[in-house]
């Protein structure tokens, strides 16, 4: 009997040894870029983010050191169920190590949970909700580019300080819009401003005239657009049609990307303020990257901050793998190692990853140039102010992330 038990124990030990042998470090990495490839957020992330990921692999120099790195991409169609199913398949079947980008906060929050359950990695660039590093934070997620706190404290505070003390929100009816409205309301209230009302519109709306009329009737000094991508573009375009800005109300495009400005044209977008953490024409480093990126894009577009964030977060990931010497295929372990080294690349400059998974770096308040100020295509922004990293993101003592309570 004892012999049998001994044989069984021996057998299991050998079997486990074999499994852990297979799981142990190797030099194989698989990246999955999960975003909107065809809908209203496709230009701000979409195929451009996949190009950014490929550029990060090339620039990391790891393949020359014998690493094998692959990228796959998928379209989550801005639907959490589709996003989670795809991510689950990637992790379980395709052995994907990192899920990158994931715009659309509702999808990002769902994938965030899955990644924790599977001990994988989420390097989120595209999503806005600050919940990812607050109540929903996990040891497997890093939120890279921006969040609703940044937008609220950039554009929101700047407009309130310059006299816009009453606000009305046009809010996209999902996780991101709600978070952005909440964070901006807090920023406006902190400066003594007041929110007089808000209206929630469905994601991907073509006609905003009803909502704009309600905003107009509210007599608020600032109309805050807590939406993104195509929704923001349509709101701004139709607001100009309904004479909202001429009537004395100000528009606050809380989240706007360079792809949106390009779609609107400078005639309509001129004078808008927005907060971004990356602009292609900031310095030599950003210009060099952006020119290379533009050449690869089918429609010759410059990178948005989301696409730049995909590049930057992956560069940092590869730097960490290089330091570890192998890919341990252990999400939490790699993320912990990523938090130990400061981030530094030509796109976002120096930064660091906070214990709650928030990568912090400088943010910028921009104003859209007029047609006469712009020297050519994609020359759209002038810098109004630089928001230092410490002010651009939720201070650690105010973060509600459970990881910080240990």
């Amino acid at each position, binding site marked *: 009997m004892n012999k049998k038990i001994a044989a069984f124990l021996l057998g299991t030990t050998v079997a486990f040894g074999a499994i852990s042998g297979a799981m142990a470090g190797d030099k194989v990495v698989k990246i999955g870029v999960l975003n909107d490839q065809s*809908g209203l957020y496709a230009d701000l992330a979409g195929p451009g983010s996949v190009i950014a990921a490929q550029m990060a692999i090339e620039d990391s120099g790891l393949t020359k050191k014998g690493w094998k790195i692959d990228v796959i991409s998928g379209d989550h169609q801005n639907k959490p169920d589709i996003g989670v199913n795809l991510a689950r398949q990637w992790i379980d079947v395709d052995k994907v190590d990192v899920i990158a980008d994931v715009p659309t906060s509702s999808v990002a929050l769902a994938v965030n949970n899955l990644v924790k359950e599977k001990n994988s990695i989420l390097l989120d660039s595209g999503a806005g909700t600050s919940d990812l590093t607050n109540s929903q934070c996990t040891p497997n997620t890093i939120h890279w580019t921006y969040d609703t706190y940044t937008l609220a404290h950039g554009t929101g505070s700047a407009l309130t300080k310059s006299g816009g003390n009453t606000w009305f929100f046009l809010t996209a009816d999902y996780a991101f819009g709600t978070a952005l409205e909440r964070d901006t309301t807090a920023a406006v209230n902190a400066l003594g401003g007041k929110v007089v009302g808000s209206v929630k*519109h469905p994601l991907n709306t073509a006609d905003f005239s009803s909502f704009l*009329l*309600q905003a107009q*009737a509210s007599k608020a000094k600032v109309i805050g657009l807590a939406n993104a991508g195509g929704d923001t573009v349509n709101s701004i375009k139709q607001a100009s049609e309904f004479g909202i800005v001429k009537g004395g109300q100000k528009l606050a495009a809380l989240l706007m990307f360079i792809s949106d400005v390009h779609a609107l044209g400078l005639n309509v977008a001129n004078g808008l303020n927005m907060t971004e953490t990356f602009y292609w024409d900031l310095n030599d480093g950003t210009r060099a990257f952006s020119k290379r990126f533009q050449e690869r894009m089918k429609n010759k577009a410059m990178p948005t901050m989301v696409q730049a964030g995909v590049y930057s977060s992956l560069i940092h990931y590869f730097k960490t793998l290089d330091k570890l010497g192998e890919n341990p295929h252990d999400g939490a372990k790699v993320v912990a190692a990523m938090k130990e080294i400061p981030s530094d690349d030509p796109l976002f400059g120096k930064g660091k990853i906070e214990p709650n998974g928030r990568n912090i770096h400088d943010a910028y308040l921009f104003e859209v140039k007029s047609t006469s100020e712009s020297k050519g295509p994609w020359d759209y922004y002038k810098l109004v102010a630089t928001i230092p990293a410490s002010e651009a993101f939720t201070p650690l003592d105010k973060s509600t992330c459970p990881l910080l309570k240990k």
Partner: protein
Amino acid sequence: MSINLQALSAQLLVGLINGSFYALLSLGLAVIFGMLNIINFAHGALYMMGAFCAYFLLNGLGLSYWPALIIAPIAVGIFGMILERTMLKWLTGLDHLYGLLLTFGLALIIQGIFQNYFGSSGLPYAIPDQLKGGMNLGFMFLPIYRGWVVIFSLVVCLLTWYLIERTQLGAYLRAATENPTLVRAFGINVPRMITLTYGLGVGLAALAGVLSAPINQVRPLMGSDLIIVVFAVVVIGGMGSIMGSIITGFSLGIIEGLTKYFYPEASNTVVFVLMVLVLLVKPAGLTGRAT
């Protein structure tokens, strides 16, 4: 909730504007379904092509909005007739499902091609100078362009209805759908008439596209976002009924506008709730005849 009469009238008017697009598009669908028995899922893509056509005319040839209003529907209409001659023609007499699948596939291909080259956020198209600005109606600020859209589409809808229901040509058309063999016996070229009818329906879609270009972005997906609602409109109005689809188009725009005021979260579902209710009570639609 207190009802503000001013705000309410403003919402009614805004609803009417959206209704004009629904009416123009569902009219084209109704013409095509009524005359050709084809469920034209490519309608949204053809509407989008109309908007793009206006954009190309302006930026490529320097032709303004006004010529585009005529040229774009004709150009896209010709494209539609080519589709009919080369593909749809072969589906005559087959189950509706084949036409639906073919046109749906065509829509995906057309959209995919445009998206590949122009991305998804779209291209700007300015309101023509003559229609810029707006007027204060007391209860709301009405952009002149929106007013123009309502009047123009109403006129086009009524003209189309007149053409089909009240003229000799319309009578031939209706006869040809009832009994093509007999009409052919009178020496009328039925296949050519069918092709022209499809061209007319497609032209109406393209016209709606040009009208919407200055309001919305010229986007590859502008049609696919709209087409599902428009199909609901056609179903509610009664498949194939010309006047039915005009009236339902305008009234659903108004109902949607009111929903945006009273309960905005439901604004993109209200049309479908209505569709379910109507189908439960009158399966052939409000003005349709049961077959």
